[in-house]
C-alpha cells in the first residue's frame, strides 16, 4: 500500500474516531473525512459513520484502500471536537501537513479532560444554579450544590469502570435524590423537589437529544435513532434512580411533603 494513502487513512480514521467519541454528529465525522481526503487529492472517497464505528474507503487508480475504526466509548468533550474541526480545516486550506496533523491528533486523543475534583466542584455549582433557576432559595442552592458534587463524584468513579451509560445515570439520580431527601428531612426545611430537579439537570441527555435530531434531519437514520434511544434510556434511568430512592423513603415510613 502506498505510504501516503496509509498516512491519510490514519489521519481520517483518528479524526473521525475522536469526533464520534467526544460527542460529534456522524455527518460531521463523514464530512471531515471527505474534506481531508479531497484536500490531499483523493476525491473518490466513501465514508460511513455510525454511532459505534466508522468505515472509510479511498479508491485510487482502481485500488480500494479501506480502514475501519471502532467507537467503543462515548463521552462528551467539546474542546476535542473543536480541535479536530480546526485540524480538518487547516488541512483543507493547505496550512497543515499530514505528518503534523497525525502528531496533533495522537496527542489530543490521549489528552484527558478536567480532573475529577474540578468536575465535581463545577458540576455542583451548576446543579446549585439550576436549583436556584427553578426558584430555590439559599438552602436549596447549598444542598443542590452538595448533591451535585456527590453525583459527579459517583458517576466519575463508576465511569472509570467503563460501566454502561444507563447504570451511571441510575447512580447519579439515586445519589441526588438520596442527599436531597435525607438532608431536607434532617433539617426539617427546604424543598427537596427543587434540589432533585437542580441535581438531575446536568445528568439529563441534552447532547444525545440534540445530535439525534441533527443526525435524523441529515438522513442519518441509524445514528439518529441510536442517539434517540440513548436519550430515552438515559432520561428514564435518571428518573428511575430518583424513583428508587423516593420509593424506599416512602416504604420506610417517610412522608413526602
Amino acid at each position, binding site marked *: 500500500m502506498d505510504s501516503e494513502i496509509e498516512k491519510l487513512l490514519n489521519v481520517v480514521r483518528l479524526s473521525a474516531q475522536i469526533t464520534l467519541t467526544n*460527542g*460529534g*454528529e456522524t455527518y*460531521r465525522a463523514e464530512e471531515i473525512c471527505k*474534506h481531508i481526503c479531497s484536500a490531499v487529492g483523493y476525491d473518490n472517497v466513501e465514508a460511513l459513520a455510525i454511532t459505534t464505528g466508522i468505515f472509510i474507503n479511498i479508491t485510487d487508480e482502481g485500488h480500494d484502500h479501506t480502514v475501519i475504526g471502532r467507537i467503543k466509548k462515548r463521552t*462528551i*468533550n*467539546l*474542546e*476535542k*471536537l*473543536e480541535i479536530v*474541526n480546526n485540524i480538518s*480545516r487547516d488541512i*483543507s*486550506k493547505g496550512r497543515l501537513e499530514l505528518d503534523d496533523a497525525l502528531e496533533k491528533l495522537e496527542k489530543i486523543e490521549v489528552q484527558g*479532560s*478536567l480532573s475529577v475534583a474540578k*468536575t465535581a466542584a*463545577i*458540576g455542583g*455549582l*451548576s*446543579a446549585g*444554579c*439550576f436549583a*436556584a*433557576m*427553578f*426558584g430555590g432559595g439559599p438552602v436549596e442552592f447549598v444542598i443542590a450544590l452538595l448533591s451535585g458534587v456527590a453525583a*459527579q463524584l459517583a458517576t466519575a468513579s463508576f465511569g472509570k469502570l467503563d460501566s454502561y451509560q444507563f447504570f451511571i445515570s441510575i447512580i447519579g439520580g439515586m445519589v441526588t435524590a438520596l442527599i436531597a431527601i435525607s438532608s431536607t428531612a434532617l433539617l426539617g426545611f427546604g424543598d427537596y*423537589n427543587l434540589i*432533585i*430537579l437542580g441535581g*438531575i*439537570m*446536568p445528568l*439529563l*441527555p*441534552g*447532547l444525545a*437529544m*440534540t*445530535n*439525534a*435530531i*441533527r443526525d*435524523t*434531519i*441529515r438522513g442519518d437514520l441509524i445514528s439518529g435513532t441510536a442517539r434517540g434511544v440513548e436519550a430515552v434510556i438515559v*432520561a428514564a434511568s*435518571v*428518573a*428511575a434512580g*430518583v*424513583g428508587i430512592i*423516593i*420509593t424506599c423513603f*416512602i416504604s420506610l415510613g417517610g412522608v*413526602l411533603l
Partner: protein
Amino acid sequence: MIKQTVFCFLATLFFSIIMNSPKRAILWSSLIAAAGYIIYLESSAVYGELFGYFLGTLIIASFGELCARKIKMPATIFIFPGIVPLVPGLGLYRMMLAFVQNDIGRALEVGVSTIFIAGVMAISMAVINLIVLKIPVKR
C-alpha cells in the same frame, strides 16, 4: 424573572465547563442559553407552555448556528449547553414522582406532555437546521 435568567446563565456557564467547552465558546453558549430561557419564560406565560418551548429552542438553535458560523466552531458546541436548561427535566421528574406515588393517571398525563415538549423542541431545532442547510458554508 431576572433572577431565573441570571441563574440560568450561571448554570449553563458551569455546565459547559464540565463538558470541556472551548474557552472562547463558554460565554456565548451561556448567553444563548439565557436568551432562550427568557424567551421561553415570557412566551410560555402568554402563549402557553408548548409554544414557549418552541420559541425558546428556536432562539437557541438559530443563535447557536449563527455563532458557529461567526466563530467557526461546530454548532453543537453552542446548541448543546444552550438547550440544557430547557430539557424537560421537570416533567420527567414529576412523572416519576406520580408513578412512585401510584398515581398512574397523573404519571401518564405528565409523561405525555413531557414527550410533547421534547417533540416540539425537536421540531424547532429541525426547522432551524433545515434553513441553515440551505445556506452555503464558507470553510
